[in-house]
């Protein structure tokens, strides 16, 4: 990518910025709507951040608002509930990140080794179908499957005699993170393999042939050819996902969470909803949102910087 970009940027003679703009006016004109869209939907809303520093009341105009300084942030970091929610968010994010990468790469490797095309396509289709279900439906399925009242998991465990009485999976805090992790894998694993399969199909077959000549078996070929080949894809995805680490998801915790397990199920997003929308403290909700965004940006650049230091591809 970078090499291509460099040649395109090298003008034959030195021109000023404005001359270059004039020369490329069609390109600029073409990109204009997108830039405007980006400004409108990604930057203009940032003006709302100013709310976090006010005792914001919706009906008043901007100049009548009462400034609060950093009081809202102070409230947040003194609040045990918010700190607990940060912990939950990080924990579930890490679980999702690790499980998501491991299962997707494993499945992609397995699929890549299948020679029967019909079988391979069938598995692939079935495994990525759940991606298109909304979380509301998935949560409903999870609730049914784990129900104490004739849910299939409890039913099987009872029948094989592993337990004496039904386990209330959704009512006990210790199971919750596992349930969220497993639901995420079920829903997204097939979808996540697509990009790895794509980068695997781009591997030059002669590499495999050469490895075979050197006496590599199936496992050695995976280890020494396939995995190194998808490393750059993996790194790029990792950097992008690290930026999302404070987005542990909202729907699944909101839909499956309930009173007794709120200690482990409530995430930052739910906190924002609860105080920002239900309690109408928009300032507090915004402050929590700002905190989340700032941490995310730091994490992305951090991961990017480390990746660069390690001599790998960088995202930016």
């Amino acid at each position: 990518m970078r090499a291509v970009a460099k040649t395109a940027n090298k003008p034959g003679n030195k021109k000023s910025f404005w001359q270059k703009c004039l020369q490329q006016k069609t390109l600029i004109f073409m990109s204009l709507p997108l830039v405007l869209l980006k400004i409108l939907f990604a930057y203009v809303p940032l003006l709302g951040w100013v709310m976090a520093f006010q005792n914001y009341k919706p009906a008043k105009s901007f100049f009548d608002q009462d400034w609060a300084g950093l009081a809202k942030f102070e409230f947040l970091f003194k609040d045990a509930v918010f700190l607990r929610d940060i912990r939950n968010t990080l924990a579930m994010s890490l679980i999702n990140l690790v499980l998501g990468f491991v299962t997707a790469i494993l499945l992609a490797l397995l699929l890549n080794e299948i020679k029967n095309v019909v079988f391979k396509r069938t598995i692939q289709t079935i495994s990525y179908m759940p991606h298109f279900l909304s979380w509301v439906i998935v949560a409903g399925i999870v609730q049914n499957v784990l129900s104490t009242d004739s849910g299939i998991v409890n039913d099987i465990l009872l029948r094989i005699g592993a337990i004496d009485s039904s386990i209330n999976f959704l009512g006990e805090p210790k199971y919750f993170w596992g349930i969220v992790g497993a639901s995420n894998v079920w829903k997204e694993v097939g979808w996540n393999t697509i990009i790895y399969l794509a980068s695997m199909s781009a591997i030059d077959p002669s590499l495999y042939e050469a490895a075979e000549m050197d006496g590599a078996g199936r496992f050695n070929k995976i280890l020494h050819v396939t995995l190194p080949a998808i490393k750059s894809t993996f790194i790029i995805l990792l950097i992008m996902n690290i930026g999302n680490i404070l987005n542990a998801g909202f729907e699944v915790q909101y839909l499956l969470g309930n009173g007794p397990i709120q200690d482990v199920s409530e995430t930052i997003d739910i906190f924002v909803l609860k105080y920002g929308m239900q309690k109408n403290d928009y300032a507090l909700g915004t402050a929590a949102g700002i905190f989340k965004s700032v941490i995310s940006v730091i994490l992305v650049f951090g991961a990017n910087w480390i990746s660069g230091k390690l001599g790998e591809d960088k995202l930016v």
Partner: protein
Amino acid sequence: MKKMFKRILAGSLAAAAAVSMTACSNDTKTTEGGTQKHFSVFITGSTEEPSDDNKLMKKIEEELGYTFDFEYLVGNEAEKVGVMIAGGDYPDIVSCGDNTFVQAGALTPLDEYISEEKTPNIWRHIKDCYNKLCYEGDGHLYVIPAYGLFDGPETDGVYQGPAFWIQKAVLADAGYPEVKTLDEYFELIENYQAKNPTINGMSTIGFEILATTGFEWVLTTAPNYLDGNPNDGDVKVDKETYDAEIYANSDFAKRYFKKLSEEYAKGIIDPEAFTQNKDQYISKISSGRVLGMFDQHWVFQPAEQSLTTQQLYERQYVPLPLVFDEGTEPWYRTEPYEQVGQGYGISVSCEDPEAVVQMFETFLSEEWQKLFQWGVEGEDYMVDENGRYYRTPEQRTQQDDPVWKAQNKMNAFFYNLPKIQGSYTDGNGASAGAQQEEFEASLVDYDKEFLAKYGKKNWMEFLNTPPENPVYFPAWNIDKVDGSDADYANQKLTDLAVRYLPRLIMSDAGTFDSVWNEYCAEIDNVDVQAYEDRMNEVIDWRVENWAQD
């Protein structure tokens, strides 16, 4: 080629601009001759939505010229209202459940549009309690209450308030006993469940609890009633000094949850009670396998409706005003009181508030009230030679059919409209439910027999006649003021309750006390004082301003 491309681009940009401009303007209201006739309405009533060919809606359009855009609540009301306020874009008429809209400055004060001359019906309806209905923050009237303003005595045959509910079958099986205390209640349920481990092929649930977001009070408020206090929400108000304090950590609350934990250990309480949402709760009750619960009737009304449709009359419920100890006077049913702040408000986005008030005025006339509540004469009800209203058996059956109701009633819209309750000037009950002879005639045979066994005429009689309401009553609707310390304390108390009470109920006898102590210790960390101060402040204010000489 290049030119062609430019043209396409320019064309698409223009189109995009046009689209975004239409999207921004909300100027789609039609105004004819200065009086607005088309209104958008935000509706929270959970009854069936009127179909497009609804009989009443057509009548309203033909005779009065009003047309509506209804926006129905889906999901959590507080959230939806919060989003509306954050966006600042309101329908003309909004359903209010509390003061949230008023505090956000989203409502138009109605004072100047209401007077004896301009709106005689509304004036007659609210003049006696006008000062009570005004928002205590600024003294203006924003919402005409939808419920609680009675003409004549309350004559409804069905009770909608809080109670411990029990299936008729359980009482019938035990030989129609009088049930007074919580212990007797659970004994009946235990016996019945032991005899009938399954109902309609599904395992029997002895006692069901709802504790989901927005309905935490179903779990938390029961002890207050058992202690003999009226519906004061999270606080117990002293009957002499009017001093309010929370009872979450009180001995009588502990007593109730201790009882529940014992019943839980016996397998009487649904283990999924605390993880279910309201839909799951309703569907369990609708299946007829739930023997009892504490709740307010209107919450599980859809389930009762479904049981009627399935003709499972013995699986429907009877309200019981239970107390801990015999000798305590129960106070579940209260004298009707104005549901202050609950009803339709007119938003600041409405161009012609006067037109809306005039519409309410017309709808509050006896003619239109009868159309909303009874229906069309000759089609939905009959008049006998004495001028009394009644329904034929077919007309009664129709009233239970959701599809028919969607085509012929406007209950979802009427829910928050100001309404006549009690009786009309001609002596007929405001609705069929308030017409005693019609109520009795409409009972199915099972219910007639059941009531006869108890020697009662209707369900309301299962509740004792209440004493006079205290001046401040009720404390449950006291506005905590969003974002205040009192409000946060309240939120924290609710969070603690849904976190600890399920654990408490599911704990065994050995660990109950330690969980209870942990819960009480957490409550001590909350700024309870701020909450109680706010409650007392408003109670004092009400005593001063509401007292009638």
